[in-house]
Structures are given as structure tokens and as C-alpha cells.
């Protein structure tokens, strides 16, 4: 994985040009060749699947509650780095268009302590509205309305407000959507309410799958996720994400890595969680899951725990999602550019 510190575009280009000179290329031809090589490398980096990790050590100030303004700033930094823009609004107008209905698929299964952060969702909603999406064309959703309320979301249906409710309010489609090993009824929120999907998972390990991040968050879209846990949820996770209703609508993943867990997931266990104070954003969910997996492994090593492989739960579903039959993204570290800002 190549890591680029400080993803400011101008800085990056300056470094590239400086590098071309420092290479010590002799003569005009040598200098041009070096510059060409740098450009090719830059192009290759830009062509790679980009995963941005934005971090703010003071996200919670001196307390435990996330600061809303700092969260908005963190989100802006992440989006600017992902889309190579100097202005946060340019990123959102690149992503969505007025008139679209945007679904934010959150993850609240972990309950309080390990769910998609309220301040993050508020920040996303603020930027979406500034990009021209009407408030009532934004739907914050997960499987159950009670679960959303339990972690502090304000349930809202109707009116000129951001909508927030669970699939239990509208039900699942009657027909099965099928691909490979998966045959499931899809949430009507996905099929009938949204034409854009922004995935807002949480960075967690998982007792069966190894990790549960972007790809597995789609288990909250179907009526029968309990059927797809054998064999480390493989190939079910990959097959599920191949469903056209998911694949064509998914535009972005913003992974809430403010509080993450390295063991005992997906439920919240404070002894196995840590305040990571970060967001991970990418348009490649496989690359994001791969990167999140590495973060969790590093934390496990720090705590003296076995690797997920050693614990017989390596996330093999990631490789399946990247394979020739799925091509949902890449798990090749040579093709992933991790940008830390």
C-alpha cells in the first residue's frame, strides 16, 4: 500500500516536480524522461483505488462527545482528499445532483457506543443539502426503527425534514432479488425511496466474517441476513453486493472509524474498542474493507491478540469480492492508494 502524507493536491504536484529534479537526471532528455516517469507514477497513483483516512486527535475535545464542528471539518478534509478538490462543496456536487433521493445506510446494530455517529450523519446531511438535495430527499435508514431510536436518531417520516426510519416501517419487496448464493427480499427504502446510496458503516471486527465494514453493511438491506453467516459469510457478502439495486446506486462509502473495535464485534464491548477518531472514505468498498482489515490487525497485534487468520476468521470474503466473478473493487495493496490527512 502506498501512503501519501498530506494529500493536498498542490503539495503533491510540487513534490512530483521536485522529485523529477532531485532524481539527478542529466541532460534535457534525462530530465524529460524523469518527469515523464513521475507523471506516469502520479497517474498510476491517481488511477489506483483511493482510500482516504482522515483523522482528528481532538475530535472529542477533552471529553467523550464528538464535536460537531470538528466532525464537519473532518468530513470535508476526507472528501477533498478523495476527490482532489480544494473546496468541500465541489466534492458533493460531483457526487449528487438536485432532484436525487439519497439514502444513508447507517449501522446501528452495535447499539450505543459502536454505531454510525450522529454528528457524522448530521454533517453529511448538511453538505448534501448545500449541494442541492432537499432535506426530505435524504433518508437515514437501517433495518429497525427501534434500533435507530435506541442509539439516539430522531425518527422522522414526512414533512420537510431529513427522513429517518427503518425498513420495518415500509417492509421488504415481495420478490426475491438473486445473485449467486443469495436470494433475498430487499428493503423498499433501497428499491423505492433512494436512487443514490451512501454507505455509512462502522469499523468493526466480526465474529464470523472477520471484519464488518462497507460490504457487510449491506446485510442490513435484506430480510434474511441470518441465512448468510456460515463459512465466514463467504461468498454471501460478495454475492449480495452484486445485486444491481445495490451496485448501481452505491456512490460512496464513508466509514465511521471514530470508535472502532478489534475483538468481540459486531456488538459494543468497550474493553475491545478504541477511540480511533477517524473517517475512512472511498468509492471502492473492497479497497476500503481491505484497508480497514489492516487497521484492525494492527490494533490486535498491539493488544497481543492473534491475527484474524490465527483466530480462524480471516475475512476471505474480501478476496471473493475482488475476484474475476465479482470485481467489486480491489484487494491488491499495489492497487490501493491510502491517503492519510
Amino acid at each position, binding site marked *: 500500500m502506498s501512503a501519501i502524507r498530506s494529500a493536498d493536491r498542490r503539495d503533491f504536484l510540487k513534490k512530483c516536480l521536485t522529485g523529477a529534479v532531485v532524481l539527478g537526471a542529466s541532460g534535457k532528455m534525462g530530465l524529460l524522461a524523469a518527469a515523464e516517469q513521475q507523471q506516469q507514477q502520479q497517474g498510476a497513483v491517481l488511477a489506483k483505488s483511493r482510500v482516504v483516512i482522515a483523522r482528528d486527535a481532538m475530535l472529542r475535545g477533552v471529553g467523550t462527545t464528538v464535536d460537531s464542528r470538528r466532525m464537519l471539518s473532518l468530513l470535508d478534509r476526507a472528501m477533498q482528499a478523495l476527490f482532489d478538490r480544494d473546496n468541500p462543496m465541489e466534492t458533493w456536487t460531483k457526487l449528487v445532483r438536485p432532484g436525487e433521493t439519497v439514502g444513508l445506510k447507517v449501522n446501528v446494530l452495535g447499539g450505543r*457506543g459502536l454505531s454510525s455517529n450522529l454528528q457524522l450523519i448530521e454533517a453529511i446531511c448538511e453538505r448534501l443539502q448545500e449541494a442541492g438535495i432537499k432535506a426530505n430527499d435524504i433518508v437515514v435508514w437501517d433495518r429497525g426503527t427501534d434500533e435507530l431510536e435506541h442509539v439516539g436518531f430522531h425518527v422522522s417520516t414526512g414533512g420537510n425534514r431529513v427522513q429517518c426510519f427503518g425498513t420495518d416501517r415500509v417492509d421488504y419487496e415481495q420478490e426475491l432479488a438473486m445473485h449467486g448464493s443469495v436470494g433475498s427480499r430487499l428493503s423498499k427504502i433501497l428499491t423505492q425511496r433512494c436512487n443514490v446510496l451512501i454507505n455509512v458503516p462502522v469499523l468493526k471486527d466480526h*465474529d464470523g466474517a472477520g471484519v*464488518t465494514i462497507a460490504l457487510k453493511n449491506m446485510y442490513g438491506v435484506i430480510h434474511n441476513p441470518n441465512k448468510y*453467516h456460515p463459512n465466514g459469510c463467504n461468498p454471501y457478502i460478495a454475492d449480495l453486493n452484486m445485486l444491481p439495486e445495490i451496485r448501481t446506486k452505491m456512490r460512496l462509502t464513508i466509514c465511521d472509524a471514530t470508535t472502532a473495535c478489534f*475483538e*468481540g464485534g459486531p*456488538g459494543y*464491548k*468497550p*474493553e475491545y474498542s478504541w477511540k480511533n477518531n477517524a473517517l475512512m472514505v472511498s468509492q471502492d468498498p473492497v479497497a476500503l474493507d481491505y484497508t480497514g482489515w489492516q487497521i484492525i490487525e494492527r490494533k490486535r497485534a498491539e493488544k497481543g491478540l492473534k491475527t484474524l487468520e490465527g483466530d480462524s476468521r480471516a475475512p476471505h470474503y474480501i478476496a471473493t469480492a475482488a475476484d474475476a466473478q465479482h470485481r467489486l473493487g480491489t484487494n491488491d495493496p499495489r492497487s490501493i492508494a491510502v491517503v492519510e490527512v
Partner: protein
Amino acid sequence: MKARGVLLVMLGLALLLNTGCKRQSGAGGSFFPASDQVAGWARTGDIRTFEAADLWKYIDGEAERYLKAGVQRVSTADYKFQNKVDAVVDIYTMGNAEGAEKVFQSEPAVDGKPIQLGDAAGLSSQSLVFRKGACLVRIVAFEGSAETQQALLQLGRGIDLRLAR
């Protein structure tokens, strides 16, 4: 006459067993201290119960581990300590004590310490896990403070007493 007597005894036994089962299945509720039964702790929500077949709705993929250990159900309730610290109590009723031990032993000790409570217990800065007979109890506080550990222990002891009844 003798046959009638046997039948009556059998009926009586059946009634007793049925009551025992009901008491057992309703015991999840009685295991949870009501507000102020443990100093400083108030129960802030209803008790919810998930039977084994629906356990995945509460703990998703983690349910597999509990199912393999023979879980029957989990009951859960929210609490608040001194109106400051929110917590959740989960009480898993396993098929037997071996099941509770199996789950308890499967969780690595990280940043915690063993303590004397129930049949075995572990306490960390924001959580207390202990087993007693066929029950596994997990208490998780959502904020940590100087008082949290002691408060968790008090609530745990309150539940432990109820499990012993």
C-alpha cells in the same frame, strides 16, 4: 381409586413443572433490579428478550458463538447510574453451566482483571462480565469515570443475588 390418585399426582406434578418453567422463562425479568434496588442505579427502559432463533436480531453474527454454546435466550435492559452514566445489562440464559463457561472462556482478557463474583468474573474500566450457573451476564457502561468500575460491580452484585434465588 389408586389410578385416580396416580393421575392426580401426575397432574399436580405437571402443574408444578409448568409453573417452574414459566417462572424460569419469566425469570429474565426478575433478574433485573428495579430502579434504586441497587444504590445509584435506575432502570431506564423495558426489558427486551430475544429467544435463540431471533438472537441474530440483537447481536448479529455473534449469535453463532452463543448458539454453538447452547444459548436459550438473552434478556436486556438499559440502566443509568446517578443520572450520569448509561449502561446496558445483557443476561444470557444458556442450556447449562458448561455453555456459560464456554462463552466466558472464549473472550480474551484484555485490559481487564478477574474478580470474585458469581462462578467467574472479569472487570474492566467500562464492563463487567460474569457467569453464574447457566447464566452469563454482561454489563457495559457507555462512559468511563473514576466511579464506573465500582458502580458496575455494585450492579453486578445485585444481579448475582437475584440469580442465586
